[in-house]
């Protein structure tokens, strides 16, 4: 199959604490919405790829349960896992299956129900986010790694505490305008800086929150993608790369090598450069992560990420609006759903359906979904027909 792959339907649950639903019920909400959006019915699905991180669920082997609940057996289904980038990994897998000519229409469901774990289970999981042989044995944590990146970035480039806070303020500003976001309130610098320490220089407000939620995109091969309810948004550039798991072997802590490599691939495949991107959803699991993304994706030069946010260049009206859906920071981070959620937001933007968060003339969009501390990164460039 040498043609393009289009996104023909999107669905998205509210993110947050969803004590009202099981994970398969969340998946069904997103899938039903995506079907309605596409005008297809479930019988048209050739396969379902689930993006999720299994250790956060009581339910094991999730795709089997989701497939049964959606009434899609005996169609093929499987799980794709790449930590916090599981959602984009699932989209890439579905895209590959269509490019290979194996399937024509594939649903991708990112879903996660994180709040069903007990605090003790979460503490135990927290203790094994890093490389366990040489790092976790010293009590390293996920915020701790990004905090070390932040301190090094501050040292090399003069990035400031205020600039990190400005990322959180922006993302909450847009989260307040996104009905699907977990946190729908603007914040002030005073409030952010008064929040508890997590891992210096980070406070609570530098960190995204665990959440429940699901998002779904339906992908179709080019001829099939046309003539449906809405014009397709094309997966025009698909990049994917890795970096070391361990900070002990990581060449640089002031950028993610995986993101730089994935972005270069995606731009080359789509035939665009960073300046052509009108709107982006990036992986702001911590405030510094968004600053690194500005630089790794080429929205600004290396070391200028702090100034980029300080000058409001990632707000609507700036040179590259970023995370105008609230980002992980305000929208919440139901791990496996996050990458799929990013893609749904860019599809909305490229369709002109983003309401008060609409970026004018958004015809080229980008997603940047990072797994762990950068061991995986997936970058998509999305385009629409004129």
């Amino acid at each position, binding site marked *: 199959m040498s043609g393009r792959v289009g996104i023909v339907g999107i669905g998205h649950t509210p993110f947050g604490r969803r004590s009202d639903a099981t994970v398969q019920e969340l998946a069904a909400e997103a899938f039903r919405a995506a079907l309605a959006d596409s005008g297809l019915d479930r019988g048209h699905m050739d396969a379902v790829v689930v993006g999720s991180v299994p250790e956060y669920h009581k339910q094991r082997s999730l795709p089997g349960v989701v497939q049964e609940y959606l009434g899609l057996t005996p169609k093929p289904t499987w799980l794709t896992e790449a930590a916090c980038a599981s959602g984009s990994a699932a989209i890439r897998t579905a895209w590959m299956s269509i490019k290979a000519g194996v399937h024509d229409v594939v649903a991708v469901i990112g879903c996660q129900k994180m709040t069903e774990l007990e605090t003790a289970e979460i503490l135990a999981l927290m*203790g*094994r986010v890093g490389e366990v042989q040489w790092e976790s*044995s010293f*009590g390293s*944590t996920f915020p701790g790694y990004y905090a*070390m990146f932040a*301190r090094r970035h501050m040292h090399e480039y003069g990035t400031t505490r205020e600039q990190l806070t400005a990322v959180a303020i922006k993302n909450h500003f847009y989260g307040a305008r996104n009905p699907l976001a977990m946190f729908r309130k603007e914040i002030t610098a005073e409030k952010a800086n008064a929040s508890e320490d997590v*891992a210096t220089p980070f406070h609570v407000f530098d960190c995204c929150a665990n959440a429940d939620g699901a998002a779904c995109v339906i992908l179709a091969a080019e001829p099939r993608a046309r003539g449906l309810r809405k014009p397709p948004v094309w997966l025009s550039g698909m990049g994917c790369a890795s970096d070391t798991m361990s*900070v*002990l072997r990581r060449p640089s802590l002031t950028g993610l090598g995986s993101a730089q490599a994935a972005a270069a691939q995606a731009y080359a495949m789509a035939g665009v450069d960073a300046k052509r991107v009108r709107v982006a959803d990036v992986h702001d699991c911590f405030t510094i992560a968004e600053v690194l993304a500005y630089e790794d994706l080429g929205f600004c030069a290396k070391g200028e990420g702090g100034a980029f946010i300080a000058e409001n260049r990632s707000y609507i009206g700036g040179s590259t609006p970023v995370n105008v859906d609230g980002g992980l920071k305000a929208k919440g981070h139901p791990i496996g759903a996050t990458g799929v959620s990013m893609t749904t937001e860019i599809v909305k933007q490229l369709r002109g359906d983003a309401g008060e968060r609409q970026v004018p003339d958004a015809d080229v969009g980008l997603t940047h979904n990072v797994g762990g501390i950068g061991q995986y990164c997936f970058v998509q460039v999305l385009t629409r027909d004129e």
Partner: protein
Amino acid sequence: MFKWFGRVNHAPHTKVAEFAQHLREGRLMASRCEACGHVSFPPRADCEACLHGAFTFVPVSGRGTLHTWTRITAAPRGFEDVAPYTLGLVDLEEGGRALAWIGASVPESSLAIGMPLQVTPRLHEDVEDIRVDYTLESPKGATA
């Protein structure tokens, strides 16, 4: 014996288990590839340069400089009682890095990226099991 390594150990079985015995005896060891001579710290059974599978332990000085650091307040399981604690990442003079706690000889107010630090083996005698690890100490205050 690698179960001795670290306050919380998730990987007791490894081909570089003797590292912990050396550490217990006060020696900090790297691995050296028997094929290409590449030295790795932390040690690896399989060479990171050529993926050869035979190695020997060689001593390293543990001298390094601080690359970055953080003080952890929100601690994971096994560390709740000892938080806050400060993690430092050092670039080692002989190559490689170490991640460890900043030791008692280095006040937090003195921490500065680029400062010299000494990776120092530590034997915990305050717990019933044998526990070994290393801390990052002031080169002057180091006991190794």
